């Protein structure tokens, strides 16, 4: 009964959003009565959708297996937390959540801005249009409200055990919040283009929204990377899987967008770029949804293949892109700036940054789509792996890093002489060069790309140390959020370089009570026991490791067999320290009774996620300061 109510409310919400779209675009949006109407209709549409979703959550918590989707993805034995997260463990439910979040951004925007604000009605109209498109997709091709009649199954299936994990329960919601948050910027860009008045500063209106979405997207991606590291047992943080790439592309575009946005706000330059980027960011977010949900690319993440869904999504995304592009090309002339960008100004460096990010996005897109094109043309299956992405990302990131370094001395809107001998810049170059020499001397690194990466990373790090010193003690103004975010970038570059240089692994063949050594660690196979848990059986091994520094610790990797699906999973055991992780997994038992065990030393891996947290933190703090500044 409740499920029908939820279903009905969702349909009602779709209708209201459609009305909202019609009102916003057909009635005169200058009329305050119309704006009030649009705003109110939108809020009610969202309210219906929210109640519908909350009912759904309620049904999932109470094991209502009359609902087909809940019966297939949840189980009476699951803790409540995972009963809720089972909603977004597969296609229909996660799409539902995605749409709720999309509309949530809209309603927050609606409630926290005054109705007289420029472009408000039309922006809400655009958001409603997108919401209607996806709600129809949900209701027509992937309905989560379908029921099993007349008799419901007793226990339900289970969620995939690798998904029964706290990081993975919160990874999709945060990632989705990041993805769909760019709808605010997109909607304003479209509303601005429709309106056609170049004096409206749409860029300032969307800054807070865009920065917060960018931060959430950063956290979402980092969470996924962290989860894959400890759960899948491969020990890496990034696999260049197509689905990771479709999350990376909107992130790259969004990073370029927030930079371009600040130029447009400061000096009304790059406005064409900014508007184009806002369209690209949102299109790439939608493209990600298409790739994951159509199943056209084989990936560990992909949901079940369904050509009908893929076709619908592709069609809707195409409509959005075509409309945006037509509008964009018609309004190009109103955006053109009379002024040129001064060379060596901040704007010029951000333009270069945009070009580099554009190239990275283009290359990633090519890497994702090339196997499809190649198979179509030559009837030969191929895949594009890490070597290609490394060949593109390493040099371009380093070039971007060097430009970032020079940009710190540049000024807005004017060209200043930035090459100066007795300056923090040359001091940084000297310090970075000296530390590179020491690193090379003591650590004997021979790989040029690693050395260069470390150099660029240290260069940025040291340069910002000077900036922080001047900021704190000489009261010279700089943007603290920019400092934190870019320090994050330098730490990211350095830790990735050291990680790929020093990390190593080995498979050991070891019996109970025997010892082996690896890189200064004595490894003793101490114990092995079986343990029963509520929904799985586990084999837990216990190893005592003795470091050459005299410290010892115990690692307990395990293997689990889940009852509901008979699936076997590997649970890693990790000893975390700031410098490196010691990471163990167990494999199979051989006929002679010995076990295969894998040990990895992963250097600087924590710093990779820490740098992402720094960037996201900087973004959220900036967003917070902008919100507070308005009041």
């Amino acid at each position, binding site marked *: 009964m409740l499920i029908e109510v939820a279903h009905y409310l969702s349909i009602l919400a779709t209708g209201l959003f459609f009305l909202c779209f019609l009102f916003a675009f057909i009635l005169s949006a200058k009329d305050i009565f119309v704006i009030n109407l649009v705003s109110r209709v939108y809020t009610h549409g969202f309210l219906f959708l929210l109640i519908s979703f909350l009912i759904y959550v309620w049904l999932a918590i109470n094991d209502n297996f009359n609902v087909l989707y809940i019966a297939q993805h949840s189980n009476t034995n699951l803790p409540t937390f995972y009963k809720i997260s089972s909603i977004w463990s597969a296609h229909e439910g996660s799409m539902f959540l995605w749409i709720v979040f999309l509309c949530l951004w809209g309603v927050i925007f609606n409630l926290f801005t005054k109705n007289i604000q420029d472009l408000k009605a039309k922006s809400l109209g655009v958001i409603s249009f997108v919401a209607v498109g996806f709600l129809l997709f949900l209701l027509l091709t992937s309905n989560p409200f379908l029921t099993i009649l007349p008799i419901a199954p007793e226990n339900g299936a289970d969620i*995939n055990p*690798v998904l029964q994990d706290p990081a993975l329960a919160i990874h999709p919601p945060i990632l989705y919040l990041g993805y769909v948050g760019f709808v605010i910027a997109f909607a304003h860009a479209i509303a601005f283009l429709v309106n056609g008045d170049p004096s409206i500063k749409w860029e300032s209106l969307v800054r807070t929204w865009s920065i917060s979405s960018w931060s959430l997207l950063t956290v979402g991606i980092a969470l996924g990377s962290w989860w894959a590291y400890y759960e899948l*047992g491969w020990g890496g943080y990034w696999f260049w899987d197509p689905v990771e790439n479709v999350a990376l592309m909107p992130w790259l575009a969004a990073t370029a967008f927030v930079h371009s946005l600040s130029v447009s706000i400061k000096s009304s330059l790059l406005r064409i770029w900014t508007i184009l980027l806002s369209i690209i960011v949102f299109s790439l977010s939608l493209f990600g949804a298409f790739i994951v949900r159509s199943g056209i690319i*084989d990936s*560990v993440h992909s949901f079940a293949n369904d050509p009908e869904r893929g076709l619908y999504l592709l069609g809707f995304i195409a409509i959005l892109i075509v409309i945006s592009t037509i509008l964009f090309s018609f309004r190009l002339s109103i955006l053109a700036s009379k002024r040129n960008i001064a060379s060596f100004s901040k704007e010029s460096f951000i333009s270069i940054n945009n070009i580099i990010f554009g*190239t990275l996005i*283009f*290359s990633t897109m*090519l*890497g994702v789509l*090339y196997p499809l094109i*190649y198979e179509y043309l030559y009837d*030969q*299956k*191929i*895949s*594009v*792996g890490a*070597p*290609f992405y490394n*060949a*593109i990302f390493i040099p371009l990131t380093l070039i971007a890093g060097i430009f970032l370094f020079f940009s710190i001395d540049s000024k807005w809107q004017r060209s200043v002489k930035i090459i100066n001998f007795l300056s923090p810049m040359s001091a940084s170059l000297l310090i970075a060069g000296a530390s590179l020499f020491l690193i090379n001397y003591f650590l004997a690194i021979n790989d040029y790309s690693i050395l260069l990466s470390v150099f660029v990373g240290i260069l940025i790090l040291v340069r910002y140390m000077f900036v922080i010193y001047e900021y704190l003690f000489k009261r010279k103004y700089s943007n603290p959020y920019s400092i934190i975010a870019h320090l994050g970038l330098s730490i990211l570059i350095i830790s990735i370089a050291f990680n790929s240089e020093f990390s190593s*692994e080995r*498979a*050991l*063949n070891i019996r109970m009570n025997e010892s082996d050594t690896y890189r200064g660690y004595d490894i003793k196979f101490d114990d092995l026991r079986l343990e029963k848990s509520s929904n799985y059986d586990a084999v837990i091994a216990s190893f005592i490791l003795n470091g050459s520094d005299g410290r010892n610790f115990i690692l307990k990797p395990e*293997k689990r067999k889940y009852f509901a699906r008979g*699936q*076997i*999973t*590997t649970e890693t055991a990790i000893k975390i320290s700031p410098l490196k992780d010691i990471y163990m*997994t*167990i*494999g*199979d038992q*051989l*006929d002679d009774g010995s076990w*295969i*065990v*894998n040990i990895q030393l992963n250097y600087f891996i924590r710093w990779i996620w820490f740098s992402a947290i720094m960037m996201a933190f900087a973004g959220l703090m900036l967003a917070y300061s902008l919100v507070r500044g308005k009041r």
Partner: protein
Amino acid sequence: MKPQRKRRLTTVFLILISSAFGSFLIIKALDTNLDFFFTPSELYSQNIPDNKRIKVGGMVLEGSVKRDKTNIIFEITDYKNSITVNFNGIVPDLFQEGSGVVVLGYMNKDVILAEEVLAKHDENYMPPNLEIEK
């Protein structure tokens, strides 16, 4: 030609040249880093150089799995031909005789030295190219 138009033309020309050059570099990087996918039968009909990283997919031949300390040796089959694979390390949880597998590695005297062994998380999974043939 007006000087302004001439300048604009030069700019457009420069942009075109540099993006063409950039695209050329990217495509070149792409072409030298592709992993080709083969079935065991395709491996026999083609000559694959040792230094080319390839992917091979098929089923793990029943009774072919041998272990030697941390090494695992098995055969991948497409029910017409099979090829021996040598891998050092832990195979995925879903790896078993008679189920689907994809390996990534290099050819060395009719043996594949695998760097990665992947088994899809799905009991109904069939490696590509094999679905019709079985």
